[in-house]
Each structure stands twice: as C-alpha cells, then as structure tokens.
C-alpha cells in the first residue's frame, strides 16, 4: 500500500512540473509578453523596458524559468493588477467561500445522485428509471450559468423566497472567525447569521451541483447494472443469501467503486463550474475572482488561479487513486 502511494506521488511530480512549464510559456505568449500583461493598457515603451529589467526578462530563459518556479513554490504569484494585493493573499481571502459552496454542492450531488442512480438501476426500464435517465441527459445539456440565472429569476426575483446574490445579508453584522459563514454563525452562536448564510447557499449550490449530480446518477446507474450481472452476485443468490444482504454487501459495495472515482474527478472540476456559478450569484469566491480576472485581463491573478486549479486537480486525482487502492485491493497490484 505504501509502495503504491509513493509511486503514485512520484508520478504526480512530472505532471506538475510540465504544467508549470506550460503556464510559464503561456505568460510569455500573451500579447505584449509578461511585462505587457502586467502593465496592461498603461504600458509605454520605457515602462515596458523598465518592467522587463525588473522582472528579469533580459536573463536567459532557463534562469527565468527556475526563478519562476522558485517563486511559485514559495507561493509568490506576484500582485494582482486590479487590486494591487498579492495574488496569494487574494486567493487565501476568497478560498473559504468557494470551499463552502463546493462542499454544499458536492453533498447535494452525492446525497441525491447515488440513491437516484441506484433506484434507477433497480427499477430499470420503469418510469423512475426513464425519469432519471432524462434528468441526467438534460442536466448535462443545460448551460450551468443559465441554470443559475433561471434559479435566481424564479426563486429570488419572482417568488422572493431566497436571496439573489452574495453570501450573507449586508444588514447582518456577523463575526467571522473562519471565513466559512455558516460555521462562523454556529461557532459564535449567531444562529440568525448562520441561517441567513444557509439561505444564500441554496441556489448557488443547486446550480453548481447540477453537472456532478447528473454524472453521479449516470455512473451509479450504469455501475449497479454492471455489477448485478457479475458472477459473484449469482453465486450469492444461489447460496441463498437474502436480497437485502446481496444488494447491500455485494451489489452496492462493488458498484460504488467507479462512483468514488467519478466523485473525485467531479470535485476537481468544481472550480470550473464555480467560475460560472459564482459570477451569476456574485459569490465572493475563487470563481468570481477568476471571472473578474478575465474581464480585466489580470494575468498575474489568472496565472495563480490556473496553477492552483491544476494543482488541486492533480492532488484530487492522486487522492482518488489512493482511496481506490484502499477500497479495492486489486488496484494495488497494477
């Protein structure tokens, strides 16, 4: 097990290194190069030359790359053009909001996705199954941002039962300890603040959960259908085990393996969905940070967020593989 983990860890290193080269190259092919990108519209030939010297762009490219790598390892992504703050500070400030939203979305997707997928497989070909299949197809075909806008329009603007945007009502003077607003409310005993934060979470979570939900339902259904036909299930049946036992121990347990991989992959993708969802709901997280960065062509910020997203994705994949090896011993051998 340890050997597998170490091998998998070692495999992730070249991936991350090449990724850093790509991001490094990406900054260099931007219009005006990194100096131009950094100065934006205010660039003059003199300021460009100054900036190039300041950034060490007159040094050999290899030296530049290693310096870049060194900065990345120490978390120095430069300063945001829009706010002037260090990118890493911005990211740290917005991080809890996105984590809070992502956890909610993921919990929603799993809590509804796995049971629905399982039931669809159990009642294959019946009304419930057909409804589930159609839901998953439509769920993937609806643009995430449109779903967000639609939810906002119906529940916030027309019905007025849920807040349209933000993380908490501005009139609530809540104390923030951790940056996770719901948790903060509970910790400080300000229950009304926590409740308000939960209400703000509902719509964006549903929008963000739509795609992972559809994918989880799909994979669970397909996986349960697959496992049901396995020899060991037939063996269990002929041994005379009761149906609930077979379903729980033999079918569901084996069927959840591919589902766990899917959940992991979808977790890595949440930041991409968050870019759209957070923009719709003006949710002050990493996604809206990225969206604002795009609008203002704030390349230092984009670079930091891209590296972060890729690193998260690689690490999540790593964790998925390792957890897979824990659940299924057969994987370790490969």
């Amino acid at each position, binding site marked *: 097990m340890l050997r597998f983990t170490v091998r998998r860890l070692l495999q992730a290193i*070249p*991936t991350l290194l*090449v*990724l850093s080269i*790509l991001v490094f190259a*990406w900054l260099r*092919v*931007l*219009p005006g190069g990194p100096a131009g990108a950094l100065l934006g519209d205010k660039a003059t030939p003199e300021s460009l030359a100054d900036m190039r010297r300041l950034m060490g762009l007159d040094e050999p490219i290899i030296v530049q790359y290693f310096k870049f790598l060194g900065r990345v390892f120490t978390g120095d992504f430069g300063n945001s053009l829009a706010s002037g703050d260090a990118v890493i500070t911005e990211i740290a400030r917005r991080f809890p909001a996105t984590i809070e939203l992502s956890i909610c979305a993921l919990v929603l997707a799993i809590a509804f996705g796995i049971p629905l997928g399982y039931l669809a497989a159990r009642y294959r070909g019946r009304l419930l199954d057909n409804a589930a299949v159609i839901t998953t*197809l*439509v769920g*993937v*075909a*609806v*643009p*995430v*941002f*449109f779903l967000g*806008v*639609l939810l906002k*329009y119906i529940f916030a*603007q027309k019905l007025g039962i849920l807040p349209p945007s933000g993380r908490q009502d501005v009139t609530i003077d809540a104390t923030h300890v951790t940056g996770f607003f719901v948790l903060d409310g509970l910790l400080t005993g300000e229950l009304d603040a926590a409740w308000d934060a939960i209400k703000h979470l509902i719509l964006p979570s549903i929008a963000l959960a739509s795609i992972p939900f559809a994918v989880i339902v799909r994979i669970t259904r397909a996986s349960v259908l697959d496992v049901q036909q396995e020899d060991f299930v037939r063996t269990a049946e002929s041994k005379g085990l009761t149906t609930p036992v077979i379903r729980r121990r033999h079918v569901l347990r084996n069927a959840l393996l591919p589902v766990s991989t899917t959940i992991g992959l979808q977790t*890595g*993708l949440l*930041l*991409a*969905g968050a*870019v*759209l969802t957070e*923009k*719709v709901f003006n949710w002050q997280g990493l996604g809206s940070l*990225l*969206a604002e960065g*795009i*609008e203002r*062509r704030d*390349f230092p910020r*984009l670079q930091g967020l*891209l590296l972060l*997203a*890729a690193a998260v*994705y*690689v690490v999540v*994949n790593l964790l998925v593989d390792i957890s897979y090896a824990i659940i299924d011993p057969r994987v370790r051998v490969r």
Partner: protein
Amino acid sequence: MTKLLTRKAERIDELAESGGTSLAKDAFRRMRRSPAAITGAVITILFVLLAIFSPWLAPKDPYVRYDELRENLTPSHIPGPMPGFLLGSDQNGFDFFSRLLVASQQTLIVGVGATVIGAAIGMLIGGLAGALGGWVDTLLMRFTDILLALPSLLLAVSIAAMFANGTQWTVIIAVSVVSVPIFARLLRGSMLAQRSSDHVLAATALGVKRTTIVFRHMLPNSLGPVIVQATLTLATSILEAAALSFLGLGDSDPDRAEWGLMLAKAQGLLDVKPELAFYPAIAIIVVALGFTLLGESLREALDPKNRR
C-alpha cells in the same frame, strides 16, 4: 431457467433471420429501434437543415436594425411581437425571430469547427503515439495528460484569454483545445488494443507494410469510438462556447447572431423580456441534448457487447 432458455432460443432465431450482418448494418438496425437514437437523429438533422437554410427561412434581415422596433425600444421596454416581427425586437432593435433562426448557423459553425479541429489534432497525436509507440508515445501522452489535468473550462479560458479581442475563431480554437487530449487518448487506446489483435498480427505475418497496417487495418477499426466521441463533443463544444461568451471571452463582434452569445448578452434582461434569454437557451439545450442522445445511442449500437 426456462426464461433463460427461451431467451437463448429467441437469440438464435434472430441470428438465423438476420443471416449474419456487418457491425455497421447491425448497428444501424439497432439504432432504428431505439427511440433515443431516433430523437437524437431527428433533432440533429433538423438543426443542420435549419443552419443551412436559415438565411432563406428568416423573414427579415437579421443584421438590420428596424426603425419600427427601435422607436419603441427603451432600457425598460423591448417591443414584443408585432405585425411582421413574430417575436418582436431584441435589445438592439434587430428582429429577434430572424436572429434566432440565423444564429443556428453560427452555433453549428462553432460546434463543428471546434470538434473537427480538436478531433484532427487529437487523432494526429493519438495516431502517432499508437502507431510509433516507444518514447514518442510516452512524450505525447505525457503532454495530453497535462492538458487533461486542467478542468476543461479553465483550459478554454486560458487559451481564449491569450487573444486580446475575441473573434469567432478564438472561441473555436479555445474550445477545440479541450477535446484534443480526449481524441488523442481515445485513438491511441484503440490502436494499442489492436496491436496485439489477430487481424493486425495476421497482416504483419503476411508482410504487410506498417503504414498500410496503420491506415488500412487499424484506423478504420478505431473510427467507431471516434465518431461517437465527436458527436458528444459537438454538444459540449456548443456549451463551452456559450460559457466563454458568458465570461466575456466570446466573439466581440456585437452584431454576431449566435445562441451562446445571445444567451450571455440577455442575462440582465430577464425582467424586461425573458424570452431573449429563454429561447436561445432552449435552442442550445435541445441541440446539445440531440447530439448527446445520438452519440450515446451510437456508442451503445456500436458496442459489440450489445450485439444480439
């Protein structure tokens, strides 16, 4: 037990009736019986026909601002249906119905353009890796792994952000990059699987040249999964392009009629005229659904495991 036997008997009867068919014929026969496949195919065909003939179908010129529409246009009021203008005006005084029709063309161009470019580059990479193997394979697959290591939308965003001004082509290129690694992996996997299969071994034993084996024996056998993936990619490409438009990285031509752009630009107008967002959204959803249905049922029909 009896159930099992009758099923087997039915299968034998069926096989005898069909008298042995090719996979393609068999797949087509199975697709005709599946409602999902038919729905997908009908939507796809209608969409393509609409895209081709929309310039003649549109009752008004979609690129002309009409005075009748503009004089009643205020920030808080967009004219609804009126004689000659089936769905009234859009936010710029264009005929909304005509634009909705013509937009199918741009949407198809973006979807097909991105898919074709992505598939072509991806297949080149995957084909080289699968055919040559060795260090070429390792190098190329490392590269595609890296592309896969970024969430697709972020990858598209980082490509699109490189261009100072968005055009139709920057969108197509940004979206196509996302599907390159998928096609590459797919073709390589399929070719690797064939390398040790009987028909390739037989060809090798007969002394057939390697290029001939690759082009005549391996590639045609890999086309099924590639076509399936291309159909599914058409759907995701259209959705990704819409997302790019929403983030302000889309085509910056203000007059361009494309569903994703129209949807993105109508976000703030839900209170004034929700149709401006709803209709393009419905169009995108239906088309994406059509491609997905078609792709999924193609996959099922081409899967030899389902051959009966």
